[in-house]
């Protein structure tokens, strides 16, 4: 037989398992992954909340006081609490994964992962402090 071997991509007797829509519940790490991806929903919610807050401030002092009152309601306290948890989860997973994507080389040697992640955390603290300072000084 001098003919080249020919592989068939589909063979009727080979078994192919269908992937269930609940695939992400099969393993803990898959579920954590989906949770991480869902943090984006709360990121979007917070962005829209910020937009609403800016609008309230621009509408005048009465609207501003009303906004602060709205934020005190159980609904918004709850929403903000859940959003904060999700956004913190997003931040921690984001900073921990950053070294995988951003390979920094100093004098030919790769900067270790903990240093890249650490500088992200440092930036987080510094920027948060700066924002807080600016707003509290006002």
């Amino acid at each position: 037989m001098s003919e080249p071997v020919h592989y068939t991509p589909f063979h009727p007797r080979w078994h192919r398992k269908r992937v269930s829509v609940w695939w992400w519940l099969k393993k803990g790490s898959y579920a954590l992954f989906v949770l991480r991806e869902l943090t984006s929903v709360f990121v979007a919610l917070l962005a829209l909340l910020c937009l609403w807050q800016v609008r309230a401030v621009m509408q005048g002092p009465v609207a501003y006081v009303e906004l602060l009152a709205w934020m005190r309601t159980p609904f918004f306290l709850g929403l903000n609490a859940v959003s904060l948890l999700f956004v913190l989860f997003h931040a921690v997973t984001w900073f921990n994964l950053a070294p995988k994507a951003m390979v920094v080389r100093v004098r030919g040697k790769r900067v270790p992962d903990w240093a890249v992640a650490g500088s992200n955390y440092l930036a987080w603290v510094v920027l948060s402090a700066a924002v807080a300072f600016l707003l509290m000084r006002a």
Partner: protein
Amino acid sequence: MSAATVTLEVARYRPEREASPCFEAYEVPLRNDWTVLDALNHIKDTADGSLSFRWSCRMGVCGSCGMKVNGEPKLTCGTFLSDCLPGPIRVEPLDYFPVIRDLVVDITDFMKKLRKVKPWIIRKQEKPTSQGEYLQTPDQLDAYKPFSMCINCLLCYSACPIYGLEPSFIGPAALALAQRYNQDSRDEGSAERLGIVSEHDGIWQCTFVGECSKVCPKNVDPAGAIQQYKLTVAARWFRSLLLPKGAH
């Protein structure tokens, strides 16, 4: 004196007589230096000679013996029975590849994708042998060495949910190997590979689940390779936007 034994639940699939896979249980001696591969060979020697599975080097360098042990993709030659206790130990073929028979899967899809990414040194001009070898510093070797450790065992494909959901996805190992050559100082082919990996089923399908790097037995870190690739391609995209056409 009765020696300790452990039960192995092995997936069987004999297409000539059954429509879908089933499990068969076998009692195997629990020796503390035995791996799952040793247990499978024991079953084939003593219980059922028709049990089909792939293996070769039995020391974790050939990539043949990849299977799922208790739901996790593993090299059976490196998975000790004592680490899988208590039994029964479930042995199944790798996920997301069609099963030909028992524990043997068809890997043609991967072979096609591997070839597609051109995993070899591409140069405009080969250096003639008379001019000597290509020199590389240890730092230049460091840039791609982890990606070169891939043994094509396909555990990463079995762990990648994206590959399961989107069979046309090029996949972790192939993309890591493309990056291995992109990062090699001797290679000049990254532009050529760019078109292939930038397609819909290339790097952009990956959502950084990260399971591939977790199961890799050689610490290749394909997830890292793909994220680095995304960054490089994005940077290139912006550069081509800001620089006049034709410039790189």
